[in-house]
């Protein structure tokens, strides 16, 4: 893999890490299998692309995307808490609804017609062109994007760590851990789920906005399988870096996202895989990561049992008393 390809993969990985942090909040903190992600990621990209095309500042556009993601997440939360719809189904319904909504959002840029499947941003200003302009004068133009995405992702990571220790967020964590308990300590779990999912999808949409600008292209299909990518990042990160404290886990999630992206790029670059295989590989990674630890555990148990049986048999033959 060439250095540029490696750099690209790293930069993308760092942007995707923001999405993975969002998935971490819904999946790990709230223990809510939220599939909204596949839709809200695109919503972020769509909102940012539309605003950029309409002439707004790319920074403002990215923030608007963040807000749009928050709203989408809140709706999923409302479906679940007020509509009493199962968590998976709430997310799936929202994801489906967002597909049409995203087409409509991108359709805003059309003179005639209401829906549009993609918006190219080839000659538009994005946060990255702005940042590169800034870095061009320092002579580090090459690394401008990298430095920028590292800074943004780290800020979000540290904000997450910071907030998860605050009173309100302690009760969000307890909501994921033991709803009955935290209700008996005067927390409105419904509201906390809604807010938690809002924050989670805000991160996801923000990541989508940055990815659309990075690729200079917003597409209605760019969110497919995003939830699994997020999960893969979490699983890889936790497996390698552990999850002892919150700060450690969020760092693990960030690195998990980067490692995942580099791995995928590597596999694609070597000509082993076609770009269309990417989803299959992602699914396989998650399946393996979920299955292998259980298989190892079973094998360990089996070995232990065999050893114990052997010892018992040996003891029996010698006719010893076991006191």
């Amino acid at each position, binding site marked *: 893999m060439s250095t540029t390809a490696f750099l690209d993969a790293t930069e993308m990985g760092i942007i995707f890490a923001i999405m993975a942090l969002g998935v971490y909040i819904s999946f790990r903190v709230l223990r809510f299998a939220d599939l909204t992600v596949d839709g809200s990621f695109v919503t972020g990209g769509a909102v940012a692309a539309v605003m950029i095309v309409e002439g707004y500042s790319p920074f403002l556009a990215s923030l608007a995307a963040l807000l749009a993601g928050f709203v989408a997440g809140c709706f999923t939360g409302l479906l679940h808490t007020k509509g009493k719809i199962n968590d998976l189904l709430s997310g799936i319904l929202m994801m489906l609804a967002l597909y049409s909504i995203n087409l409509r959002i991108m359709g805003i840029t059309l003179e005639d017609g209401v829906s549009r499947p993609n918006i190219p941003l080839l000659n538009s200003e994005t946060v990255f062109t702005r940042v590169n302009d800034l870095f061009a004068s320092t002579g580090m133009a090459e690394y401008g994007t990298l430095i920028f995405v590292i800074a943004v992702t780290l800020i979000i990571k540290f904000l997450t760590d910071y907030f998860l220790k605050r*009173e309100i967020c*302690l*009760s969000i964590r307890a909501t994921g851990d*033991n709803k009955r308990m935290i209700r*008996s*300590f*005067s*927390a409105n779990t419904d509201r906390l789920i809604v807010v938690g999912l809002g924050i989670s999808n805000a991160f996801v949409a923000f990541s989508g906005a940055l990815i659309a600008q990075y690729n200079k292209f917003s597409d209605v299909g760019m969110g497919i399988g995003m939830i699994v990518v997020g999960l893969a990042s979490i699983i890889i990160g936790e497996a390698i870096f552990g999850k002892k404290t919150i700060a450690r886990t969020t760092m693990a999630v960030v690195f998990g996202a980067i490692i995942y992206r580099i791995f995928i790029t590597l596999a694609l670059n070597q000509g082993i895989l076609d770009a269309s295989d990417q989803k299959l590989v992602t699914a396989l990674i998650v399946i393996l990561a979920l299955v292998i630890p259980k298989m190892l555990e079973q094998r360990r148990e089996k070995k232990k049992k065999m050893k114990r049986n052997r010892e018992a048999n040996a003891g029996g033959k010698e006719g010893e008393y076991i006191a």
Partner: protein
Amino acid sequence: MPEEKKVSTLLELKNIYKVFNEGTPDEKVALSSINLSLKKGDFVTIIGSNGAGKSTLMNIISGVLLPDAGTVSIQGKDITNIPEYKRSRRIGRVFQDPMAGTAPSMTIEENLALAYSRNKRRTLRLGVTKKRREYFQEALASLNLGLEDRLNAKVGLLSGGERQAISLLMATFTEPDILLLDEHTAALDPNRAELITNLTRDIVAKYNLTTLMVTHNMQQALDLGNRLIMMDEGKIILDIDETKKKTLTMEDLLNEFQRIRGKKMTTDRTLLA
């Protein structure tokens, strides 16, 4: 004087009625015409066989279930339709399952912080501050389990007895108006159960908490509290006050239970005959 009465009555249940699966063959009247009033500082133990309605009563008071008829009021204020999470600012609870009262993947100090902020507005302040940590340590030390040195241990790693002790502390150290204990020692081994029973006695006395305790253990029901209630088939069938409870023995209780139950059985028999 009615005004004076209002002040001394802390919890009042009036004509509470609750039926499950109404209109189906599984219909069950869980509570019927329950009237109960507790004075401030009362410690009431509740006994009764399975399905007598003890837990349903607790759930009605805490707001987990809403009654089909009747009212619940605390200090004269009708709270019948106030949601559970709002009531729990002032009602402390310990459940039977030691896993139920704490958040297992959070640390001891985080759990205490959650409980500590129950009657306050939760903000973006730090959950565990230095000042609070000291207070938590002090409170934990009173349990004599050495937990004050393990503030950063995940609660899920603790034993059932330790978790139940922490649950009890968390339920009480903000001095709630009412403490509800739902067979909170039933899932523990005898030693641990005794420990928690003693802690309960100490803590309730320390804060002078108005307490309702459901138990299956008759001896416990006799040892603790100043009032004893027996429930059967959704009704309060026996209500023993402080003076009478002091001299009450287990045998009396069993006889009494048999007398009431037996009488009912004979009436059933006469009906069938």
